[in-house]
């Protein structure tokens, strides 16, 4: 396993990982001699939430497994920007097969390890929301059902970004995409539909399900680390803004992600055996409008102001706050 000395561009914030804390409390990313799953120099867009989320998630897996890990990747942005032959940004054993089969391929890796009696090497699978929520859903459900020893990480940027921003099963209501244009009487993605994959994963009764966000990388690392302490099928759903598809400022990726969490639209929680066991309380609740107005994909909700849609989205956020008891006083 090769090591690359990490280049730090930021200092002292959430982003770099709490280097002011005691060493034992610091994140993987805070160490100057940390391993590097995904080298710099790959071809992700500026401000890519997925590149950030993937590097933090996989580095946490590397630390948790003492570098004894294999990663399986679905087709999508992450695969394309990291592996154009003859270059590869991956410093770990990495396998890409198809768009819809990453969970099954990872199950196969896990099965081969079982057959060979290798309990030391662990496998993780990763894909975007299109690969996870839509095309790979059957394979993912099969992997959950068999409780294969795989951590599946979904990087949710809420549309098919690799093909040029088309709607996925994870696209939020009213969002513009190239296949849900903001025109007509029902602009953007329709209201009242969609797939909540963390809850579907919970319904399989697998040992561990969590949501995470690139807005809180310390929490993301902690959840990945916890997931790696458990055997069996595990699922982590990470919210990763996409400046290109969301029409947001690349400098605002973390800010946008944080507003999604603090508005209640993307609740952060953990579940074990199908039951919610922990959640991250909202420290300072913001309105959904504060989150939506930073993104061009929701521009049509503000010019002219679509009061009905904004209220309906606010109601979704409030329902999440209620369901997961995100504000302690309202619990």
């Amino acid at each position: 396993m090769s090591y690359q000395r990490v280049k730090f561009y930021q200092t002292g914030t959430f982003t770099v990982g709490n280097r002011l804390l005691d060493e034992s409390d610091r994140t993987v990313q805070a160490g100057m001699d940390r391993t590097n799953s995904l080298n710099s120099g790959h071809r992700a867009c500026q401000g890519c939430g997925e590149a950030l989320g993937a590097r933090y998630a996989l580095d946490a897996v590397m630390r948790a497994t003492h570098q004894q890990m294999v990663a399986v990747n679905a087709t999508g942005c992450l695969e394309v920007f990291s592996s154009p032959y003859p270059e590869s940004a991956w410093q770990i054993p990495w396998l890409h097969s198809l768009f819809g089969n990453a969970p099954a391929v990872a199950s196969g890796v896990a099965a081969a390890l079982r057959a060979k009696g290798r309990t030391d090497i662990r496998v993780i699978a990763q894909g975007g929301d299109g690969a996870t929520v839509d095309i790979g859903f059957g394979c993912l459900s099969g992997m959950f059902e068999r409780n294969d020893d795989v951590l599946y990480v979904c990087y949710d940027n809420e549309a098919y970004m690799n093909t040029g921003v088309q709607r996925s099963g994870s696209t939020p209501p009213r969002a513009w995409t190239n296949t849900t244009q903001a025109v007509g009487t029902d602009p953007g993605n329709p209201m009242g539909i969609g797939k909540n994959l963390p809850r579907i994963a919970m319904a399989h009764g697998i040992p561990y399900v969590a949501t995470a966000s690139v807005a809180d990388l310390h929490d993301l690392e902690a959840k990945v680390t916890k997931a790696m302490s458990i055997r069996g099928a595990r699922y982590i759903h990470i919210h990763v803004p996409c400046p290109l598809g969301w029409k947001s400022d690349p400098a605002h990726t973390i800010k946008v992600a944080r507003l999604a969490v603090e508005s209640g639209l993307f609740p952060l929680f953990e579940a074990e055996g199908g039951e919610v066991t922990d959640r991250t309380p909202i420290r300072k609740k913001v309105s959904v409008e504060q989150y939506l107005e930073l993104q061009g994909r929701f521009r049509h909700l503000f010019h002219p102001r679509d009061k009905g849609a904004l209220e309906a989205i606010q109601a979704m956020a409030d329902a999440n706050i209620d369901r997961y008891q995100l504000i302690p006083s309202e619990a």
Partner: protein
Amino acid sequence: MKQHIEGSQAVAHAVALCRPEVMACYPISPQTHIVETLSLKVKAGEIGNCQFLNVESEFGALSVLIGASAMGARTYTATTSQGLLFMAEAVYNAAGLGLPIVMTIANRAIGAPINIWNDHSDSMAMRDAGWIQLFAEDNQEAVDLHIQAFRLAEELSCPVMVCMDGYILTHAYEVVDLPTQEQVDAYLPPFEPVQVLDPQDPVSIGAMVGPEAFAEVRYLAHDKHLRALEVIPRLSQTFQDIFQRRSGGLLKTYHTDEAETILLALGSVNGTIKDAVDDLRKEGWPVGSIALRAFRPFPSHALRHVVEDAKRIIVIEKDLAVGKGGIVSSDVKMALQGLPIIVDTVIAGLGGRPIPQASVIDTVKQACLEGLEEPHFLDLNWDAINGELTRQQAQRRSGSTAENILREIGAPGASPI
């Protein structure tokens, strides 16, 4: 050890002796008895540390094997028909990644209309995927080809399909000489992958390749098949040394010396064809036959060498390239380019339609005496076809059904056509 055994069970026995480490299966007729038997063997602890995964689909099954094979495990599955088509994307992917997966195809027709009986439409649909395709003539050969397939796949790092006719072979009870573990161990060394996922030596497998290198990668896949044309006969010879019987190879000839007319086919119909050759020979017809063992890679050179003195090749094939005709005969024609040999296409046995010996004999005589239309369909019910064509014609007329009926019977006052 000779045993009266069902084809599927014989194949499962052979696969088990090859010590697969991961199997992932999804049931579909007529493949089911193979995976049922293997699931029992794994659960009973008869196959070492083998992992048997029950998966949610054929696409999932082959995907599991892609992961397991890339991790260095010997892998196996079986499927057929719709199942093979459902896993099609992974079929191409496994070949592109150079993973030596072995898969049995219990050949079956593809719907619609849904039909569970034997023909070769399914594996033909995967013809260009990059898998080696071997066709078994009988259950003894199905057993032997599976053992050869693992070694072939692993020597070349290329996936191999062993095709056996659904029901005709899978469900037939025959006497089969089942190999022993010692024989198989002597023939098949442990799997040593050429590239493997290893934390001690990390590699990226399945990277994105652009126009600057893609054609080279495809050429290398082609080159692997060209090498297979040499490896297949060699492995067949080695097999004979250990198992004391001849099995496999690129093709098998029957009375082709001095034959003016040679029949050529894939799979179990070669039994019928050999009987027909015997009967025709008794009547003085100079005929012979060739059973093609390897369909991919296509043994053009070997075939040309065998048939160069013949006048006519009649390809009897259980598939149809709709809008064109024969698939196998097209390959034969290309292989024989420049030779003054007539190649006839006979489409037969689709969807499990029997191929009677008498029909084969009649077709050979007709071909030699009058020639055949291209392609020739064996034993078609022309009444049914003409009836349906007439009905379709009637439907195209404008107006209500009642109006059309009145028009057809020439009722007074009916509008003109």
